[in-house]
């Protein structure tokens, strides 16, 4: 089966140029300025952009155990709609992915039912309890690409030291959700002027920074690969800069919402803006943007965290933390950062493709002859408006609901197969 993608503006070898792409079965067979050989199907991409399929290092598929929020099918469908072809699922499901059986269950379900490739992240500690090291090496045989207690944070420094020693032993990257439980307390939002005004208790940047500082020191001591999830504060970036300057094996990611929104978004008590770490000050947001541009922040990850309507439809301090990420990620970043001239399209695409793939050593994120045909086609002139009706995720907890955004993913190819095709006039 041959498919030919004609006349697209293709992100190839770090730049945009007009190319044709020939797909043969699941691989890219050729990429040239012009390909005229006959194909079973011709996809006309005139006026559209063709990116490598997006790679997300951080999402919550809620399967198994919380399938009222999301499941493998709806989660990967939503990911495909957002242009993603490879996503990494965090282990905080019920039961927790802290054993080989859970890893194999997910891998098999994703292969059978998924609309994109799902890579599994195992837990650092059993049941995410921060007490005993999980069977990382066994899970690695099952295919995990990293370990993380995301949503939780190992508070005990001695245990974390051992976890990092152990993970380092097997070459497994450790992904941290940095949160000191005492400093974060029952905090709801950033410790800035909106918290003062609304009287909500706070999660100060310090809650994240002290753990980042600690784990950078542990990474230096253990030589373990450390990846810092959803960095949100300017001072955290300073710590990461120092670590990188020293040549330590440290990388980090930022979410689309921390790049596009600040604490002001919470002022109307919209629980869809409630997330961890919280949306911070404008100063922090600008520092994150600068760090993304400079490469200090390696990549963008959605932290797709679906929650059911009735869970979010509560008093602000009773609603769960988390933002639904897949479907608004590209359009929100394109609209607020690229279209307004704050970020180049090249860097945005890099941060959604090759850069995250590099962080975990995944074979994804580039368009090359002989590699899987994972491609995302976007029309940057078209707008989308996510609504409760047109979202594919089971949950609708995004601050971008009903807000028009520019940059529409029109088609997603995963292993040469179309996993998302926008209808005209569809969200």
């Amino acid at each position, binding site marked *: 089966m041959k498919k030919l993608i004609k006349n697209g503006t293709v992100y190839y070898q770090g730049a945009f140029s007009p190319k044709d792409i020939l797909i043969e079965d699941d691989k890219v067979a050729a990429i040239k300025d012009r390909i005229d050989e006959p194909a079973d199907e011709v996809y006309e991409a005139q006026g559209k952009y063709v990116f490598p399929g997006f790679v997300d290092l951080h999402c919550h598929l809620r399967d198994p155990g919380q399938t009222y929020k999301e499941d493998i099918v709806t989660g990967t469908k939503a990911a495909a709609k957002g242009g993603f072809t490879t996503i990494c699922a965090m282990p905080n499901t019920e039961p927790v992915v802290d054993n080989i059986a859970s890893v194999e269950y997910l891998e098999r379900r994703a292969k059978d039912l998924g609309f994109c490739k799902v890579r599994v992240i195992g837990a650092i500690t059993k049941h995410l309890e921060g007490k005993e090291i999980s069977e990382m090496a066994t899970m690695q045989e099952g295919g995990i690409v990293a370990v993380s207690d995301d949503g939780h944070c190992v508070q005990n420094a001695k245990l974390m030291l051992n976890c990092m020693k152990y993970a380092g032993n097997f070459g497994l990257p450790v992904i941290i959700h940095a949160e000191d439980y005492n400093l974060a307390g029952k905090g709801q939002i950033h410790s800035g002027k909106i918290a003062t005004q609304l*009287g909500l208790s706070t999660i100060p940047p310090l809650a994240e920074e002290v753990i980042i500082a600690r784990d950078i020191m542990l990474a230096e001591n253990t030589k373990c690969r450390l990846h810092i999830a959803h960095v949100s504060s300017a001072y955290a970036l300073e710590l990461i800069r120092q670590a990188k300057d020293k040549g330590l094996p440290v990388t980090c990611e930022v979410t689309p919402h921390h790049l596009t929104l600040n604490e002001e978004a919470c002022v109307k008590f919209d629980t869809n803006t409630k997330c961890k770490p919280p949306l911070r000050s404008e100063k922090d947001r600008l520092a994150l943007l600068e760090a993304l541009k400079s490469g200090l922040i390696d990549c963008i990850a959605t932290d797709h965290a679906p929650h059911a309507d009735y869970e979010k439809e509560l*008093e602000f*301090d009773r609603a769960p933390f988390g933002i639904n990420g897949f479907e608004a990620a590209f359009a929100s970043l394109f609209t607020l950062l690229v279209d307004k001239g704050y970020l180049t399209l090249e860097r945005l695409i890099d941060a959604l493709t090759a850069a995250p793939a590099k962080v975990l050593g995944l074979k994804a994120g580039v368009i090359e002859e002989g590699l899987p045909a994972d491609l995302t086609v976007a029309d940057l002139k078209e707008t989308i408006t996510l609504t409760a009706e047109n979202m594919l995720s089971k949950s609708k907890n995004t601050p971008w609901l009903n807000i028009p955004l520019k940059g529409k993913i029109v088609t997603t190819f995963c292993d040469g197969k179309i996993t998302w095709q926008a209808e005209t006039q569809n969200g």
Partner: protein
Amino acid sequence: MQQGFNFINRCLFDLDDYSAEEIMYILEAAKGMKEINLREYKKIPTLRGKTVCTLFVENSTRTRMSFELAANRLSADVVSFQESISAIQKGESLQDTVYTLNAMGIDLYVIRHSSPGSPQLVHKYSKKPVINAGDGRHAHPTQALLDIFSIWEKMGSLQGLKITIVGDILNSRVVRSNLIGMKKLGAQVTVCGPRTLMPGQMEEVYGCKVEYDLKTALKDADCVMGLRMQLERQTEGLFPSLEEYTKHYVLSKDTIKWAKKDALIMHPGPMNRGVEILPEIADSSQSIITEQVANGVAVRMALLFLILGGKA
């Protein structure tokens, strides 16, 4: 309505919902209501047939009584919903509670809740006017209105007055609403308390002054308000002991000298005598603490009257 003001079916989430002129209009209306409260038969028929629900998801006896008296004196029917005996205890969501109450034909909700922003939710679900009777640490606009009324009644105006509020600023919804309202009417407000009980960026958010030293804070004050200091802040690690707090921040004969002579002494209650305020001050001739309580009923009557469109 006179002077182009329209209060009908409006919510009161916080004082930033109302202009300085509208606040003054409410105060004038409250003055009239206060007169009714001094009559032998303290009741007028103006809200007959209207139903007010006091939805108290967080317990508070005095505020609820004040609202219920206010509604009763205007002849509205009052139903009361209390956390300790309610379905919310059984895990019912606020949304379902409001849908249920709304089906019974409530015309106005008065809500007290520990979660900031919950009055907005009650309005969203009920589409009825909602008066915030205190939402967590966020706002307590009727307390602020009665505080402002009490000062205005004594001083004639708030313009240019120096008002100092002392105590646990961090946990006080009363302070937040007062800061908005008092500033609108031209007062200069200073907040004072230990740094562990002071929220960040107060100057930027409210345009007030922040002092950590009581003497500096009280200098030239026309009006001094103490706030309830709660023992649980000690176990939260915010200050070492009530004794040490008292040593530095108590309103006493000795410390009140730093303010203007005859400065008004206020407290939103309930008081911790001997902690944030000594009886010698709370019960002094400068104190208007019990008048504040009386004014609370009048202010709440005025609000219910204006929002439910009562006929004079």
